[in-house]
């Protein structure tokens, strides 16, 4: 009698509700998402004000962070490093435990990781608010910030390493019980992403721990800016894929359900993620094409790898395109191209992602242009560059994250989205505003307007570029409206919404994939990545490191041309 009623304790936890979240999930994932949104609330509004400050007809003082470079640093660091990371970690926990139908490995450790990242955020925010870290989000030495700025970043990265361990241990526990099965694609992509992240962060960890932090603390007195730049970009390019992969997860595995379609090819999606993993790191030199310390040979090699890393995105364009064609056909599309507009534009969850994809087309093409070695001479560090990466980061990535937010936040809160109408207005004002910004800053960049420059008090601005810079302010107004609408909906959903949440989590728990199992040999791919990294980056460091006199550049605070003691 007794034995018949006895269930293994673990099975209780496996019963995830279809809609809504378990209390433990609600708190863990909710904390990550809400922290990400608080960070975003600080970072996002400073964006449009950069445009108002840089428009010659306005030259508006930025509110709160009145010093331009402080505002720019906050915008970059808080949006690009903290908002993204918190959101991605929360989303990864959700994807992994729901897809594998098991709780993550050691949830308490997940809280430790969250604590590390949160303390990191607070430390960095403190240094930014008190003007001790006006070094922008690339923090190139020999310009040096407060040690707390670097410590905060270290804590953020260590937190993500713990997250990686949790996700992989959860996977291996699942694998033990499911020998020979394919892991769901969403988990597959998550694991490629964290593998890439762990290798990539080695670069920035070495830079911060052995160069910047000791210099900032006064333990050492000199540095090597060229080597530091190489270490930063070893990390800096895969960083953008760390943001992009969660968006791809949504496009490949969630959007098919949200559009009543199905994935076109699961195996080719897996191949795309593996190519992304392999080629994401040996490409960072394309951020250093006009650096004096790197040879033409290494620039050429990493340029070719950069073109290789465009391939998974082009495969994705086909795979997702085919999935959307089916969605369009089900909505009544009959001709060769009418499926493109016969989409569910009135559903914010779908519309946000579609709009993100459209911006990604612009971002992808402009990216191939930047990456083209000699064309880069015309564009490096001009306003073309922020125009480009706002199509990718603020387009594809952020819009997809917002699309995810529009179903995930209601699930966390247990209440329906506050307003579909507000969400749609938010999405389309963002789309138009960001395209205006992309176009005008792209044109201004071609004319030679520098990025990261307080044009509002500059002694010279190219007269030909003035109409574009003014036009960008119109985009800024739309983006300001859009950002406000986003937070109206977030606060509304959290505090005002009364209706219960409906709909299911768009998660696959079982997959029929015809992909070869070698794609899931993580140890093997890690070795491939490491070998390629050594071959592509080893010679770069041999070129940049000064073997005869070591570090010989003194540190400086950004405020004054006086070397640090």
């Amino acid at each position: 009698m007794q034995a018949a009623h006895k269930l293994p304790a673990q099975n209780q936890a496996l019963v995830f509700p279809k809609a809504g979240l378990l209390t433990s999930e609600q708190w863990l994932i909710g904390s990550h998402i809400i922290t990400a949104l608080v960070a975003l609330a600080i970072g996002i509004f400073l964006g449009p004000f950069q445009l108002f400050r840089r428009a010659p007809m306005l030259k508006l003082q930025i509110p709160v962070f009145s010093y331009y470079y402080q505002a720019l640093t906050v915008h970059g660091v808080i949006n690009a490093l903290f908002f993204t990371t918190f959101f991605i970690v929360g989303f990864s926990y959700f994807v992994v435990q729901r897809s594998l139908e098991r709780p993550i490995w050691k949830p308490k450790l997940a809280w430790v990781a969250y604590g590390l990242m949160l303390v990191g955020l607070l430390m960095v925010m403190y240094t930014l608010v008190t003007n001790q870290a006006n070094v922008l989000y690339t923090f190139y030495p020999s310009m040096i910030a407060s040690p707390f700025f670097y410590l905060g970043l270290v804590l953020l990265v260590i937190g993500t390493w713990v997250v990686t361990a949790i996700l992989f241990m959860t996977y291996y526990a699942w694998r033990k019980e499911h020998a020979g099965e394919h892991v769901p694609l969403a988990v597959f992509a998550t694991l490629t992403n964290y593998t890439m992240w762990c290798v990539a962060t080695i670069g920035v960890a070495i830079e911060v721990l052995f160069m910047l932090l000791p210099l900032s603390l006064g333990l050492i007195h000199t540095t090597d800016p060229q080597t530091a730049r190489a270490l930063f970009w070893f990390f800096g390019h895969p960083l953008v894929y760390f943001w992009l992969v969660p968006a791809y997860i949504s496009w490949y595995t969630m959007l098919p359900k949200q559009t009543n379609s199905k994935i076109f090819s699961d195996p080719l999606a897996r191949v795309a993620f593996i190519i992304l993993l392999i080629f994401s790191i040996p490409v960072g030199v394309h951020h250093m094409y006009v650096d004096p310390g790197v040879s033409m040979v290494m620039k050429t090699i990493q340029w070719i790898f950069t073109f290789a890393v465009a391939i998974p995105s082009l495969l994705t364009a086909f795979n997702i395109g085919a999935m959307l064609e089916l969605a369009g056909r089900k909505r009544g599309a009959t001709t060769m191209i009418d499926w493109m507009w016969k989409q569910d534009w009135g559903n914010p969850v779908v519309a946000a992602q579609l709009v993100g994809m459209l911006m990604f087309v612009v971002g992808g093409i402009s990216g191939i242009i930047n990456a083209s070695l000699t064309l880069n001479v015309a564009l490096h560090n001009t306003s073309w560059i922020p125009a480009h990466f706002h199509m990718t980061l603020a387009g594809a990535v952020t819009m997809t994250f917002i699309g995810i937010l529009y179903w995930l936040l209601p699930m966390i809160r247990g209440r329906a989205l506050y307003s579909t109408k507000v969400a749609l207005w938010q999405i389309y004002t963002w789309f138009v505003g960001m395209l205006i910004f992309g176009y005008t800053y792209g044109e201004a960049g071609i004319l030679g307007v520098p990025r990261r420059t307080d044009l509002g008090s500059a002694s010279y601005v190219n007269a030909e570029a003035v109409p574009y810079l003014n036009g960008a302010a119109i985009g800024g107004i739309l983006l300001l409206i859009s950002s406000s609408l986003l937070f109206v909906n977030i606060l509304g959903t959290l505090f005002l919404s009364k209706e219960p949440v409906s709909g299911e989590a768009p998660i696959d728990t079982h997959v029929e994939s015809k992909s070869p199992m070698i794609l899931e040999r993580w140890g093997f791919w890690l070795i491939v990545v490491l070998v390629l990294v050594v071959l592509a980056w080893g010679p770069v460091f041999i070129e940049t490191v000064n073997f005869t006199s070591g570090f010989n550049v003194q540190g400086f605070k950004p405020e004054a041309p006086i070397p640090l003691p």
Partner: protein
Amino acid sequence: MIHIHRLERYWMITVGIVMGGFMAALVASVLVYGVRLPTPVGRVDPTHLENTDLATPGLTQDSEHAYTLRVVAKMWQFDFGVKGQMPKITLQHGSSLKIVATSKDVTHGFYVEQHNVNMMLVPGQISEMDVVFTKPGIYHIICHEYCGPGHQNMIAVIEVL
């Protein structure tokens, strides 16, 4: 192996051809049009520029139509021996200019508007570029890497007669 749909194969071939075309165009830009990127030419100790070529920055005439411009970038000006808010040099059109530059404090940028000069000036490294100014006009040299509160005013001028 993985099944690849016929249309997807066509797509991949198209992608291959397009990317190949881009690569060919790029090789042509180097071999035919002579676009150059900065490459390693040497290092300096930024605290001891006095014993180097860059001890006395400025414009020197090497032959009738060839000049060398030595520049030391610092917070927040391009030093080539000319005083003023926006220091200026003057060249005859058609003359070639060798630019030799470095930074003595933080990372700066050296970008010449409407021309093919775009270099990072990294402390410890020498950046070098040969250019020819064929068209008369005013060319602004802009620091395009953030270098502190005076960054936006770090501008110089090349006047080509």
